[in-house]
């Protein structure tokens, strides 16, 4: 038997006294697609980072083709043919897409390089993998999903022997995810070893051959996908039997509208065309559209990020004069969960407690002085509500795993007890267990009367959680699905234009 292309033996890693990886041993064969699963904070990203040379392990060995190697830096890992897409996007904002795709691999001749050759190279890679991206745009003008696609292209374009993908589909629509999974299958057929980290079990069960499960830094299962079931995997992740999935109740009758949007128009890209809708008291309204259709612009507008959008907004019967800035949205009683937690949502230098209380600090203070006990209580409650896994409320947000950061973000907005809750990708990177908990939490808030607008690229989330689902296409509302369920999925996708 030939040596696996990548293997680790007895890997260990600690942050301070916190053991993040403990005695992890596994192997990845050429042409194998393997899934790495685990709850938020289980250590998946850490393992991937160790394999990518981005983080040094404390103990254990890494072997490439059976030979022990020191992956002392990403450069060394790349030289061994290991490419990596990190969970948190890492790109150069001011450079163009083409330059980001070819980062570190500029076409060169005697130290010189040329912009035209670079663009040709990037275009060729994009063409080969079937990605259509605005190659000449600066990276920071792209949407999150586009940026994710660039990152994927960047890694794939390296023609590596091993590719580590850390939740690449968390921010992608099902169309893009599907595309990626196909590319992955193609890569495996060509002998590339793929390590795939995801919280989307359906993807894993469709695209991967083997599965590894991490729990609290221990590898608790390694088996062929065929030998297990989603339920079994979830039990491995949690370390106990999982609850039965409860379809969210939506027995409420249609109630009076809390949020009314009338005639939203936007000339720029993506445009909006006469978008109007209501969200009732206690209703969760889903907006679904393919990337660039305009759904996210609607959410951002309600969050106060698009002063250029015209139209009328009414909250609780009183018109909102202007949504020129986020503060105005907050004052109108709208809480907004932005899509990109790292650049828009969280200050990574703050402790968990202060991040959770960020929006309600005024109400937790007297004469400008924060009542720290009350703050602690409130933050503790929120942390429990969102099922946060942290070492304590004093831990810095930047030290949390990606999924847990997301929970902090959602928690900080829920803290407002808003009349209107606008969510963009609320469970981006959150594990299955916690995802369901967040769904329940959102449902509970709705039952208490919160009007919720949900914008998600995850079709499953959209149909499961929404009381009503609007499909946005080319900036306009094209159809409405009252009470969608999993059977509506393909209809929704059709309406959105993703299946043409």
């Amino acid at each position, binding site marked *: 038997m030939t040596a696996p292309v990548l293997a680790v033996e007895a890997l260990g890693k600690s942050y301070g006294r916190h053991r993040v990886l403990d005695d992890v041993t596994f192997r990845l064969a050429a042409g194998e697609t393997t899934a790495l699963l685990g709850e938020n904070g289980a250590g998946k990203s850490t393992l991937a980072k160790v394999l990518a040379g981005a983080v040094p392990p404390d103990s254990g060995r890494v072997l490439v083709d059976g030979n022990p190697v020191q992956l002392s830096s990403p450069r060394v890992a790349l030289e061994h043919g290991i490419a990596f897409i990190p969970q948190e996007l890492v790109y150069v904002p001011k450079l163009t897409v083409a330059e980001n795709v070819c980062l570190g691999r500029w076409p060169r001749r005697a130290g010189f390089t040329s912009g035209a050759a670079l663009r040709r190279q990037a275009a060729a890679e994009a063409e080969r993998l079937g990605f259509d991206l605005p190659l000449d745009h600066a990276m920071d003008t792209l949407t999150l999903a586009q940026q994710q696609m660039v990152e994927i292209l960047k890694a794939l374009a390296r023609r590596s022997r091993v590719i580590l993908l850390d939740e690449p589909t968390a921010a992608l629509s099902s169309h893009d995810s599907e595309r990626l999974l196909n590319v992955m299958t193609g890569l495996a057929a060509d002998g590339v070893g793929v390590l795939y980290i995801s919280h989307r079990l359906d993807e894993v069960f469709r695209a991967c051959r083997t599965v590894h499960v991490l729990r609290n830094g221990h590898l608790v299962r390694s088996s062929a996908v065929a030998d297990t079931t989603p339920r079994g995997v979830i039990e491995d992740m949690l370390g106990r039997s999982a609850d039965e999935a409860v379809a969210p109740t939506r027995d409420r009758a249609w109630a009076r509208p809390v949020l009314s949007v009338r005639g939203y128009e936007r000339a720029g890209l993506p445009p909006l065309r006469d978008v109007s809708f209501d969200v009732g008291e206690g209703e969760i309204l889903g907006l679904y559209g393919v990337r660039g259709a305009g759904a996210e612009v609607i959410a951002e507008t309600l969050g106060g990020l698009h002063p250029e959008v015209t139209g009328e907004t009414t909250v609780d019967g009183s018109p909102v004069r202007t949504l020129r800035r986020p*503060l105005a949205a907050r004052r109108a009683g709208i809480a907004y969960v932005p899509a990109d937690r790292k*650049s*828009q949502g969280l*200050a990574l230098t703050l402790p968990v407690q202060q991040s959770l209380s960020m929006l309600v*600090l005024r109400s937790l203070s007297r004469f400008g*002085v924060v009542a720290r006990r009350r703050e602690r209580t409130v933050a503790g409650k929120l942390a429990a509500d969102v099922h946060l896994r*942290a*070492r304590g409320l004093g*831990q810095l947000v930047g030290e949390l795993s990606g999924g847990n950061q997301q929970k902090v973000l959602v928690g900080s907005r829920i803290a407002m007890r808003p009349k209107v809750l606008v969510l963009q990708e609320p469970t981006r990177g959150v594990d299955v267990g916690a995802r369901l908990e967040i769904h329940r939490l959102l449902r509970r808030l709705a039952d208490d009367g919160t009007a919720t607008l949900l914008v998600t690229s995850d079709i499953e989330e959209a149909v499961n959680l929404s009381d009503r689902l609007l499909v946005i296409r080319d900036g306009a509302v094209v159809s409405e699905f009252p009470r969608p369920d999993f059977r509506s999925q393909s209809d929704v996708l059709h309406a959105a234009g993703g299946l043409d």
Partner: protein
Amino acid sequence: MTAATPTLPDTTPESRTSRFALNEGTLRGVILAAFLVLIVVFFSSRSDAFFTSDNALNILVNASVIGIVSLGQALTIISGGFDLSVSGTVPLGAVVYALLLNDGYGVFGALAGVLVAGAICGFVNGLIVAKANINPLIATLATMSVTGGLALTIADGVQIPFDDPEQGVLAEQSLFGVNNHVWILLGLSLVVFVALRYTVFGRYLYTVGGNREAARLAGIRVDAVTTWVYVFSAAFASLAGAVLASQLLTGSGTAGTDSGLQSVAAVILGGASLAGGVGGVPGTLIGVLILGTLANGMAIMSVPAFYQTIATGVVLLLAVGISQIRRISRRGR
């Protein structure tokens, strides 16, 4: 898909350990303080004149002008900014103070005038940085030129000695034989410490410094917070100018022009990050004291002039380097 039970093993928001465990910032502060102690021990072993209460006061007296400036600088740096203009505001404060004293406004009247003058400069800085969105380094480099030039213009290029040499009360010793301006420094330190730790404003500062965009999306008035920060910084610098004038019994348009870089050095040495969102009063004070003690100790030891300059640089590097050793290298910037 199946659901998990709501209780997860270590969802422990109440975990007791974290309150007592050293976090990175505190640890850094402890290391720096140890470094300061090391310097003190070294100089004490070299000179009998060093480790005396008189000399301790000496160091404090010398450090208090830059200390007051550094408190304000700490605010700007924590908020992700930078205030070089204090190099002009300190002399401006000194000149205005001397003028007002000589015009018979009394110490309190003159102080009020100085604070107002400083606040105005700071307000302008704040507007430029927050509203015109100009990089704070270049903005305050420019306003440093303006305020410095103003100081010289007001003084018409000459020094303004206090008409009544008895009016240097800010520099006089009072309670426990400690100079008034040292009390001012301590008082302000306490105020800023409390403000940073326990007030909404302090929280906003750290949030804005940690991630401006996230702060804005959270509905924090980022512009207002930023403007206030510069107002405070300039008011502190202006006050420091009044202290300096009181020490010299003269308002000089050229005194204190090195306070910009000096205060930035002290604040960063004290553990703040130029990226914003990190830093605090204890660290800043330690930073100020390290620099002050070093200057004092070397002068007492009669270290030749140029070697003092070199040694200051080396020790600065050592201090920052040592306090960084334990730092996780994970994030680049």
